């Protein structure tokens, strides 16, 4: 039963991940990432970490993905051009990806962590539930917790500053022209044509 659940979620997570990098339209990439995140939440549940799984679904698959969908709808994702600036990028990149996977696997599996091949110790019923995580966050990890909250505030302020409209910097308050939806820069910046 546990194995079946693991392989189902693993297939979902891997399929979602490959969907993210294979879809031409960024909107479908976001949808594939949502599948990936739900499968990861199931994997977290298999690892008896209920709070992380719930946070994954609520925060990631809920809030963050809604943000993504809004921005994709605003920017209007189009397909990318097939033009490759680096020759052979399409063949070199999978090679490097496979090399990275092999390297990571060798690094982890050849380590002397003997407990890797086991199921992990038996844990009591409250392992990883919100009460335990909250106790850790508010007692042992209080300073990182507060630091991350300050970081979140800074990120929100930074995003407002970055995306705010201001005058005199080339911003155009009107609606973007419809040819931007093709994804092909029809009127690129002056430097884009010069460098290619």
């Amino acid at each position, binding site marked *: 039963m546990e*194995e079946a659940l*693991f392989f189902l979620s693993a297939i979902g*997570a*891997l399929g979602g*991940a*490959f969907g*993210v*990098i294979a879809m031409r339209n*960024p909107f479908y*990439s976001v949808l594939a*990432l949502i599948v990936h*995140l739900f499968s990861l939440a199931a*994997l977290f549940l298999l*690892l*008896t*970490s209920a709070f*992380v799984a719930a*946070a994954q679904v609520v*925060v*990631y698959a809920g809030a*963050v993905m809604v*943000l*993504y969908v809004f*921005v994709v709808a605003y*920017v209007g994702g189009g397909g*990318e*051009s097939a033009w490759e600036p680096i020759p052979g990028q*399409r063949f070199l*990149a999978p090679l490097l*990806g*496979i090399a990275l*996977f092999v390297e*990571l696997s060798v690094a982890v*599996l050849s380590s002397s962590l003997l407990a*890797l*091949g*086991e*199921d*992990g*110790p038996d844990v009591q019923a409250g392992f*990883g539930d919100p009460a335990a*995580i909250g106790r850790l*966050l508010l007692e042992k*990890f209080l300073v990182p917790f507060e630091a*991350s909250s300050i*970081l979140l505030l800074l*990120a929100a302020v*930074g*995003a407002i500053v*970055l*995306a705010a409209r201001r005058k005199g910097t*080339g*911003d*155009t308050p009107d609606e973007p022209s419809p040819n*931007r939806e093709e*994804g092909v*820069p029809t009127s*690129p*910046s002056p430097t*884009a044509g010069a460098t290619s």
Partner: protein
Amino acid sequence: MNIEWFVVLSALLFATGALGILLRRSPMVILLCLELMLNAGNLALVAFSRMVGNEQGQVFAVIVMVIAACEVVVGLGLIVAIFRRRLPLNVDDLRELRG
């Protein structure tokens, strides 16, 4: 279930995210691939926390989620700013800072 399986799956997901960053040129998809890599790290953290039988790794995973949310917010703000200035949304065209 062996912890090994989870760790190898997380390595595979991490490599997939890196592959996406190498392959794709839309900054939005690159942000999504960063999410993939962060989530692979999260999976490894939670798996190791289960292996040790200690919840502190899960607290790490929660903090990583916060960092990922910050990164998404700033990245999407940058994308909106790029779009407002009518620059091409393509990381190969946005290379004025390249040396």
